[in-house]
């Protein structure tokens, strides 16, 4: 078995353990042991969203422990969280905030809390894990099409990618693909500029909390 096959197999196993404990957490929301086992499984995954979702559930289900007995666990996980999520959870530990049933810190992998819609429109449909995966796939497909000199396919992939970025306001995927292709001397035409301008126009000023 190659290294990449082994990594994929380990990810599958971790996903199964994660889901197993997701069920346990759903049935026993206050059981800290189940939450910790689920977080341990999430740490084995490459995606960040399952970990954030599991931690949000833990902070909601075991709210009574959070200000007193969570520092060791948080030290283990904090570097795997986005800066915003890390700060959000830190505020809960410091008693400045707490996780509600609808929370900005919840993700689609959460089972006790739901992602809140109470944030800016352009962020609604973006998953950073999805954006990275899509960017990786699209870059590989475009470079493959260029290597095969399949210009029709190349243009089609580009157009589908622009449509995707526009619909999901996914600036992250657009930027990742742009930089990756830029390193490979990509010829960016007007359509790339148009897509970038469209994405820039949808940025709204952040409202202070």
């Amino acid at each position, binding site marked *: 078995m190659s290294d990449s096959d082994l990594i994929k197999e380990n990810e599958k196993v971790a*996903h*199964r353990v994660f*889901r*197993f404990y997701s069920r346990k957490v759903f049935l026993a929301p206050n059981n800290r042991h189940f939450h910790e086992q689920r977080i341990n499984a999430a740490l084995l995954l490459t995606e960040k969203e399952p970990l954030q979702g599991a931690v949000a559930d833990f902070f909601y289900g075991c709210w009574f422990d959070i200000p007193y007995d969570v520092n060791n666990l948080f030290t283990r996980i904090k570097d795997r969280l986005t800066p915003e999520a890390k700060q959000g959870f830190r505020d809960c530990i410091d008693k400045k905030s707490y996780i509600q*049933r*609808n929370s900005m810190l*919840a993700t*689609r*992998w*959460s*089972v006790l809390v*739901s*992602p*809140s*819609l*109470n*944030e*800016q*429109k352009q962020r*609604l*449909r973006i*998953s950073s894990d*999805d954006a990275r*995966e899509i960017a990786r796939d699209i870059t590989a497909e475009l470079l493959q099409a260029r290597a095969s000199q399949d210009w029709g396919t190349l243009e089609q992939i580009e157009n589908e990618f622009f*449509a*995707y970025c*526009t*619909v*999901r306001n996914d600036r992250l995927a657009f930027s990742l693909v742009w930089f990756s292709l830029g390193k490979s001397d990509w010829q960016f035409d007007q359509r790339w500029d148009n897509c970038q301008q469209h994405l820039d126009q949808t940025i709204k000023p952040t*409202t202070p909390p």
Partner: protein
Amino acid sequence: MSSYLNADKTYLTLTPAGIFEAFSQNEPTDEQLALQDLLSYGQTLLAADWLQRYSDIWLQSFIEHGWIEKLSLLLPAPNLPLDQFLPYVVASLSGKRRAAIGSDEGFCLARIGYSQEEADMLSVAAADFSGFMLRQKQRGWAVESQAISFFQQVDLLIPETSFVFLWIDGAGYVLIIDGEPLTNSRAFVELVWALKTSGLKFLN
């Protein structure tokens, strides 16, 4: 008027759990119609406007059930043509980013990750299941508001394929999700909001 929220400054929307509750029946109850009303407009409703039509007790109950979320900002409904919007939104509902949406007549409306052939086959299967569930309801087995998952492994842990049935303005839809279903998502709310308000506008 509700005393526990600033009804003229607070907007209301459905949560993912609220979507399941509101759109699971082909003949919705009055309470379910009141929930559906929240996603019937081009933007989120003010609590004050909703409370002119429905009771404060219902609102309190819906919030306690986790079906409604209170918002501090106005959100516009998705306004892109459905064929541009649906594929990318349904993708995030699947752990493998393979998903489709079909009508209860067996037509595939949008797909991503699946080939056209796979999506067509699954949409026809979904229509069969939808009919099956309606027939069971008539016989007294209340399965109509439930989803169906198929598993390959004996522990029934992660489904291979799941079907989620939704009724929007009398029309039946089914979400077809490959792998782990991730419907606890803002995309799920936006998907139904788009279907409810679009008047089924497709570009092509």
